[in-house]
C-alpha cells in the first residue's frame, strides 16, 4: 500500500511537470504540430480509401505458340510484329487499348500481362490483381494440343482464387483467319470432353505441386463450361489480321472505369 501511494505521488508529480512544460511552449508551435499530425493522418486515410481498385489486370495465358505475344502487341499499339519467338519472360504493359485511344473521355488504363506458355507458375503470381483472364487457344493446331490445353485450362479453373473471386475467363480461339482453323463450337465441345476426362482421373495433377483445390462442375453429369461458378465464354480472334473485337469487348466489360 505504501509503495502504491508513492508511485501515485510520483506519477502526479510527473504529470504536473509535463503540464507545466507544455504551458511554457508558445501556443503557436503546439497548434502547428497538432495541425501537421492531423493533416498527415487525413491524407493517409484518403489515400487508402481512394486507391484505385487492385483489379485492373487482364492476363493472357495459353500454350506456347498460341499467339499471345502477337495479340499483346495488337492490343497495345495495333501493330503486327514482324516476327515472334517463344517468350522467355512475361510481357507487361499498362496502357489504354489501342482501339480506344481515339475515344474521348476518361478511359481506364488496362494492365495487360502476357504470360509465356511454358511457365504455368508465373500465371498464378498475377491472380490476386486479375479482373479477367483470356485463355488463348490455337484454333489451327488444336487437336494435337487439345490435351495439354485442356489440362492447363483445368488447372486454371480449379484454382481456389479463380473460383472464389469469380474471375471471368474468355477462351479465345486464335488464328481463325486461316481456312483450316476449327470453329469455336468444335473447340468448346472438345475442351469440355477433355476436361471431363481429366475430372475422372482423380489425381489430375499438373506441374509442380499445384493441386486441384476445387472440383469442377456437377459430379455425375458431363462437364460443360456453363456449370462453372465463374463465367466462361468463348470467342474468336485473329492476331494476324487484327480482328480482336470480341476480345476487346471482354476487356472493356471487365475493366470498369
Amino acid at each position, binding site marked *: 500500500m505504501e509503495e502504491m501511494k508513492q508511485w501515485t505521488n510520483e506519477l502526479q508529480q510527473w504529470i504536473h511537470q509535463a503540464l507545466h512544460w507544455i504551458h511554457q511552449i508558445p501556443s503557436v508551435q503546439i497548434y502547428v504540430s497538432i495541425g501537421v499530425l492531423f493533416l498527415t493522418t487525413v491524407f493517409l486515410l484518403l489515400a487508402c480509401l481512394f486507391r484505385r481498385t487492385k483489379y485492373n489486370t487482364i492476363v493472357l495465358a495459353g500454350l*506456347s505458340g498460341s499467339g499471345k*505475344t502477337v495479340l499483346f*502487341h495488337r492490343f497495345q499499339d495495333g*501493330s503486327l*510484329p*514482324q*516476327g*515472334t*519467338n*517463344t*517468350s*522467355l*519472360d*512475361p*510481357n507487361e504493359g499498362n496502357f489504354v487499348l489501342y482501339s480506344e485511344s481515339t475515344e474521348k473521355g476518361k478511359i481506364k488504363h488496362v494492365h495487360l500481362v*502476357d504470360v*509465356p506458355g*511454358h*511457365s504455368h*507458375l508465373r500465371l498464378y503470381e498475377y491472380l490476386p490483381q486479375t479482373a479477367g483472364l483470356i485463355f488463348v487457344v490455337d484454333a489451327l493446331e488444336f487437336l494435337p494440343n487439345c*490435351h*495439354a490445353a485442356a*489440362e492447363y485450362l483445368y488447372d486454371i479453373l480449379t484454382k481456389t482464387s479463380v473460383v472464389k473471386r469469380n474471375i471471368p475467363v474468355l477462351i479465345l480461339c486464335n488464328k481463325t483467319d486461316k481456312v483450316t482453323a476449327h470453329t469455336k463450337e468444335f473447340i468448346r465441345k472438345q475442351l469440355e470432353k477433355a476436361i471431363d*476426362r*481429366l475430372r*475422372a*482421373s*482423380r*489425381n*489430375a*495433377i*499438373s*506441374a*509442380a*505441386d499445384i*493441386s486441384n483445390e476445387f472440383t469442377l462442375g456437377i459430379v455425375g453429369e458431363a462437364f460443360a463450361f456453363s456449370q462453372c461458378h465463374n463465367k466462361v465464354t468463348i470467342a474468336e480472334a485473329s492476331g494476324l489480321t487484327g480482328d480482336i473485337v470480341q476480345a476487346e469487348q471482354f476487356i472493356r466489360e471487365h475493366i470498369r472505369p
Partner: protein
Amino acid sequence: MLEQLLIFTRGGLILWTCKELGNALKGSPIDTLIRSCLLEERSGDASYNYDAPGVAYTLKWTFHNDLGLIFVAVYQRILNLLYVDDLLSMVKREFSQIYDPKRTAYNDFDDIFRQLRKEAEARTEEMKKSKQAAKPVSNLSRKQGQAAAQKAGSEGGVKQKNGASGKDGGDGDYKKGRKSENGYSNGIGIEESHAAGVVKNKENGSSENGAFDVNKLQKLRSKVGKKSDTVSKVPKAEPKKKGPKKNRVWDESPQESKLDFTDPADERGDENIAVIADQGESMMDKEEIVSSESEAEDDEEIEKDNKGNAKKKGWFSSMFQSIAGKANLEKSDLEPALKALKDRLMTKNVAEEIAEKLCESVAASLEGKKQASFTRISSTVQTAMEEALVRILTPRRSIDILRDVHVAKEQGKPYVVVFVGVNGVGKSTNLAKVAYWLLQHKISVMMAACDTFRSGAVEQLRTHARRLQIPIFEKGYEKDPAIVAKEAIQEAARNGSDVVLVDTAGRMQDNEPLMRALSKLINLNNPDLVLFVGEALVGNDAVDQLSKFNQKLADLSTSPTTRLIDGILLTKFDTIDDKVGAALSMVYISGAPVMFVGCGQSYTDLKKLNVKSIVKTLLK
C-alpha cells in the same frame, strides 16, 4: 557465311533480322534453342547444335541483360566461322545504343550491321593469314610420319576449310556426318579455337585427324567385325542349347538330390496369402504440407553466413553498393557469390559439372543487369538461382500417369512401363510400390518378370504379385527379356490388364552387350513409358549413368523415333537427409521429370517430388 542473325526481346518480339541474308531457316532452330537451351538453364554453353532433316546448324548467342535483349547468330555447322562471337558482341554494343523500348522497327541498323560484318570478316582473314604462314614449317615434320600421298591432299583440303576443327566425335559421329572434310565438330571444340596460339596446336591436331581418315575407316571395319562376334558370344540372353547343366562335383561327398530350396508354399496357393491390400493410402495421394515458417529462419541464417564470409572492407563496400544500387553487375562481382553458391550446391550432393553449368547459366543471365537498390549481390544471385532451379525441376509436360493410362485404356491397349537402371537401385521394390498405388486407383496391373538373369528375381516378383493379388507373366531364367516382354504385353491385351510393369535386370551403363539387349527390348516393344530408376545416394555418377543410358538408347535404336528416358524414379530418398542434389543432377542432364520418389521399403512409401521443398533444401 552466316545464315541469319536475329535480335529479339525476352518477351519474344523480334526486333531485327538481317535482310541481306535472306535465306529462310529450315526447321525451327531458334525456337528449339530457346526451349531446350535457354529455358533449361544451359545458357552458359558456348553454342548449340541444331539438327533437322536436311540441315545442321550451329547457334551462338549473347544476352544484354539490362535491356532484356537476346542476340542469336545461326550458321551451318560445316563452316567454322571464327568471327561470330566478335560479331555478336559488336552488334550488341551498337544496337544497345540505338535501342528504344517503344520502337519495334530498326531498319537503319542494316547499314551498321553490314559495316560490322565486314570488319569482323576482315579481322578473321588477317588472323587466318598469320596462322597459315606458320603452318607449312611445322607440318613438314608431320608428313614424314604419314603413309600415302593421298592423305596429304586431303590434309591440305582440310586445313583450308576448317580453321580449327573439333576433336573426334567417335564412331557415332563418324557414321552420321561423313563428309570429305572432317564433318564432326563439337560445339566445345569450336570454342577452343579463339586464341591464335591454341589455334595453331589444334590445326596440327586436326591435320593428324584428317590424315587418319582412311586409317580410321579400316580400323572401324575391323572393329565392327569384332563387335558382331562378341555379341553373338554373349550367353546371357541366349537360351542354352547344351541341355541341363550337370551339377559340379567338389569332392566325394554324396550328391544332394535336390538343390531347389524354393518355398513349397507356392504350391499351397491360397492359404498363405497374407492379405496386404490395405497397408493404407499410398503416400502418392497424401499432400505434403510445406512449412513456410522456416523461411524466415533460413534467410537470417544465410545473412549471417554471408556476413561472416566477407571481409570487413568487402562488407562495407557491399553495404554501400546495396544502398546506392551499383550501375551494372559485372562478372567479377558475381563470381564470389556464385562460387559460394556452387560450393553449397556441391555439399548437397549435386554433381560437380552440373553445379558448374548452372552457375555459368545464372551468371550469363545476370551479367550487365542493373542491380536494384537495397539489394545485395548475394541476394540477387540467390533469387536468380532459385528461379532457375524451380524452372529446371518443374516438369515440362504432364506427369499424370493415371490420365495416360485412361487414354491407353480407351484405345484398347495396355499401358507399358519399363523400369531400367543400374544394379541395386531398387527397381523391383519400387515396381511393387507403383503397382500398389495403381491398384488403389482401381487400375488392373500385370507384372512382367523380364529380369531373367539375377537369381531370385522372378521369385521376388512372384511374391509381390501374390501379396498384391495381381497376375504375373514369367518365363523363368535365361530367356531373352525382349521376347518375354513381348509375350507379356500380348497376354495383358488378352486378359484385359490396363498396365504392364516390366522389370529388367540391372546393368552398368558401360556394359555394351547389356545395353544393346536393353535397347532391343525397348525397340521391340515400344513401351509407353521408359522409367529410369536412380538412387538418391548417387553422386557424380548420376551424370554418367543417365547420359550413357540415353546415348546408348539413341545410338542403338533401329526405329526412326528414338525412345529415350521419359521419366525418373528416385529411390532411397529417406536415406539422405538434406543431400538432395541427385534429383537436380538427374533432371538437368536428361531433361526427364521426376515422376516418383521412393522413400522407404514398404508399399506405401512412394510419393511425388515436392519441387519447392527441394529447392529450399538445396539453397539452405
